[in-house]
């Protein structure tokens, strides 16, 4: 094919930008779509760091060890070859980011500094203060801006992805998107499309995610025939700051730098935490997990906090909260390594965490599940790729801290070139696809919009959303029970019925955020069913998926990838299961209370 391949990237976080850069470098043309200016994408919120086994601390770390920790941390649910690929590539990714000017913290000799994170015994996490995601996103944003100024990347910011354009062979030939200001819907042809639309936090109402993380794009594609894999695996971060509007993340790096989690041993102890003597504090993580202590993986720490609060009834002031204590650490070290997150706590809570232990509680944080992809990031729809949090590939049943940034960039670096190779091999480029294909999808989207614009029922979309969030947080996070899960699915069907009677409180045809949100809400409801039903089916406990009635991991029946697909005629998810590739590391029991 003579012309430069034309690739659409949807989403401008780390994964989307990484893919865009690779495509531009290979001579492709990128159309980059994002709801927000890409520099404001959710990757900006990542705090603690990015993992790579550079072994700069003389600990004998290796990429194999990183691979082992990741697979073990993920409770042997991830296909192992791509995880190994990621861990092997990570050191070079750090070098590249370093060359791009990311202001990583340094050792006195001027080398990269590394700190410890959960689920490993090694100092493997490179970091830029406690705003590592921001710094990484900016570095890639700057490189994309450079390609943009050279005409290789065209940005469509303030545009919302509505659907893939599929031709008669169910091959992806482009997308439909809506201008969030003029509300105009347009179709855009492309030789291949890469989805990099991030997380799904909004399905849980309040989470650590940004407002744009609704999972709407993934849900649309699932409804168009893409497999959605391992949807039931939801990471609840052990340490977030409960808030009115969201749960603000308190990075794992706080514990990586020596932060300790504790509660007063005495129930209802109202003393100032600083005045409680050591002997009257219960450092339960250190007691239960002597080897990893406060740095057990997130699912383990989250369940421990739940147990202390709900079974031992030892939450601070009877509230669902425990202390995360940094006050024993030198102020200057805290400022140099953690300033960004201390500032967040100070600004939003009003206390100085250098002086007072922070009050934290687990909060929904990340989805391990996502669009099913093969090892080249291709979905089951030809021409459609997915990278970053919106796909399922690298983290198994539980993601280790500081592995998300590396998986985003690595996935983009695999998916971008794969899309270019695919585009170059196409017998018929997107330019040769008949207009009818685009027109019919455009018409379908126009009809959805017209119907919604006229909706004048009784249901307020924002209230419906809060109900969805409460329901999912209650039943589909830390502890799962089959009775509750099947009730949840029933309730979701009810919410979908009520959605049919939605009232659009704003009908204007300019920058109508209510309209856009209401459209997303439908997709959130559909995807929520995949999560709830997936959790219901999986009768075992593995990683973040914990059922007290099935407390053990069951490799014989459940060492399988869940693949949901949408049965359009029945308007519900169907499931099939795929064996996991464990060819590199034989599965072994995952126990953080003992040496592994």
């Amino acid at each position, binding site marked *: 094919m003579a012309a430069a391949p034309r690739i659409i990237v949807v989403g401008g976080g780390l994964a989307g930008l990484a893919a865009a850069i690779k495509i531009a470098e290979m001579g492709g043309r990128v159309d980059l779509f994002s709801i927000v*200016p890409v520099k404001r994408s959710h990757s*900006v919120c990542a705090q603690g760091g990015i993992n790579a086994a550079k072994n700069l601390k003389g600990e004998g770390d290796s990429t194999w060890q990183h691979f082992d920790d990741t697979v073990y941390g993920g409770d042997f649910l991830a296909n192992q070859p791509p995880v190994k690929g990621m861990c092997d590539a990570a050191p070079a990714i750090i*070098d590249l980011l370093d060359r791009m*000017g990311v202001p990583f*913290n340094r050792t006195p000799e*001027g080398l990269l500094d590394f700190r410890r994170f959960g689920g490993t015994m090694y100092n493997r996490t490179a970091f830029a203060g406690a705003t590592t995601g921001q710094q990484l996103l900016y570095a890639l944003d700057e490189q994309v801006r450079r390609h943009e100024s050279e005409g290789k990347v065209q940005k469509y910011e303030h545009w919302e992805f509505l659907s893939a354009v599929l031709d008669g062979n169910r091959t992806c030939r482009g997308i439909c998107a809506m201008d969030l200001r003029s509300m105009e819907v347009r179709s855009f042809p492309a030789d291949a499309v890469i989805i990099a639309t991030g997380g799904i936090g909004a399905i849980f109402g309040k989470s650590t995610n940004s*407002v744009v993380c609704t999972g709407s794009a993934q849900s649309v594609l699932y409804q168009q025939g893409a497999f959605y894999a391992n949807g039931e695996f939801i990471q609840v971060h052990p340490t977030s700051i409960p808030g009115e509007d969201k749960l603000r993340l308190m990075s794992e790096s706080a514990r990586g730098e020596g932060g300790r989690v504790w509660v007063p041993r005495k129930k209802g102890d109202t003393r100032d935490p600083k005045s409680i003597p050591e002997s009257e504090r219960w450092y339960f993580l250190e007691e239960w997990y002597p080897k990893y202590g406060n740095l057990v993986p997130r699912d383990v720490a989250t369940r421990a906090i739940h147990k202390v609060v709900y079974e031992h009834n030892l939450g601070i002031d009877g509230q669902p909260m425990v202390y995360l204590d940094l006050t024993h650490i030198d102020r200057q070290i805290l400022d140099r390594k953690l300033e960004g997150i201390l500032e967040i706590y100070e600004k*939003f809570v009003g206390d100085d965490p250098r002086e007072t232990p922070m009050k934290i509680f687990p909060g929904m944080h990340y989805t391990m599940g996502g669009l099913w992809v093969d090892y080249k990031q291709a979905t089951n729809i030809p021409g459609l790729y997915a990278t970053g949090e919106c796909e399922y590939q690298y983290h198994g049943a539980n993601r280790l801290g500081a592995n998300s940034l590396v998986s985003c960039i690595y996935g983009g670096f695999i998916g971008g070139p794969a899309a270019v190779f695919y585009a170059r091999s196409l017998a018929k480029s997107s330019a040769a696809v008949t207009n009818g294909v685009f027109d019919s999808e455009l018409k379908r989207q126009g009809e959805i919009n017209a119907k919604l614009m006229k909706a004048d029922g009784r249901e307020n979309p924002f209230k419906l959303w809060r109900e969805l969030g409460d329901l999912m947080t209650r039943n589909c996070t830390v502890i799962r029970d089959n009775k509750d899960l099947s009730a949840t699915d029933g309730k979701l069907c009810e919410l979908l019925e009520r959605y049919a009677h939605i009232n659009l409180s704003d009908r204007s045809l300019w920058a109508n955020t209510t309209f856009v949100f209401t459209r997303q809400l439908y997709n959130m409801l559909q995807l929520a069913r995949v999560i709830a039903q997936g959790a219901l089916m999986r009768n075992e406990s593995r990683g973040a998926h914990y059922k007290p009635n099935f407390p053990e991991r069951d490799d014989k029946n459940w060492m399988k990838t869940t693949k949901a697909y949408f049965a359009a005629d029945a308007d519900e998810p169907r499931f099939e299961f795929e064996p996991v590739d464990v060819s590199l590391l034989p599965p072994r029991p995952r126990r953080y209370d003992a040496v592994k």
Partner: protein
Amino acid sequence: MADKTVIIKIKRQQSPDAKPQWEEFELPWKRGMNVTSSLMDIAANPLTRDGKTTTPITYDANCLEEVCGSCAMLINGRACMACSALIDKLDQPIRLEPFSKFPVIRDLAVDRIVLFENLKRVKAWVPVDGTYDLGPGPRVTPEEQELAYPLSRCISCCCCMEACPQFNEHTGFVGAAAISQVRLFNTHPTGKALKHERLAALMGDGGIQECGYAQNCLEACPKDIPLTRSIAEVGGEVMKQAIGGLFRR
């Protein structure tokens, strides 16, 4: 209505050309509420204080933890971020207005593309050879990192530009944020390859000499970036380059 309430007046504008008008809201007070959470509460119950049904407010917001830079607006006349503006710390009635120096899209949302265009103009990037594996980057001392890191925390919120008396249609002033990025990239061991071009971009109309040293930018910056220091340093470099240029002629 709950015992304790919050009163918020919002300057609303249907579209870029529409006439703005004020609406007043009274919301139940909640512990820890901020301006963004209040706007969410209005969306869930879009009624004005006098009981009139209205539309939810259009505003920009994303991370809600003051790191994405989306939700900048005028709150009681000051340029700041809505997510970190805690209601309990604000005088009531709280007045919310869109930025005055950027085109209004709708209600509190404005178009801030000018900053991103300026970042292109000053080539705010490190010109790497490529993304293939070329080994580690240059060594950087902890002191150099501690200088660069605060500059690199700019969230592109544009508060510094809104607060600047010189940032207006007449001057076309590039603003403090972009100038500070020039300082960041000009001090990077590889980034400084483009130093000459960056400084050249800051000469002439709308360039760095438009700065009137009001220092409002420093005050307005939610990330405490040493913006005036950046302007002073880059200003000196621009001057040096301009004089050098004169002699080379």
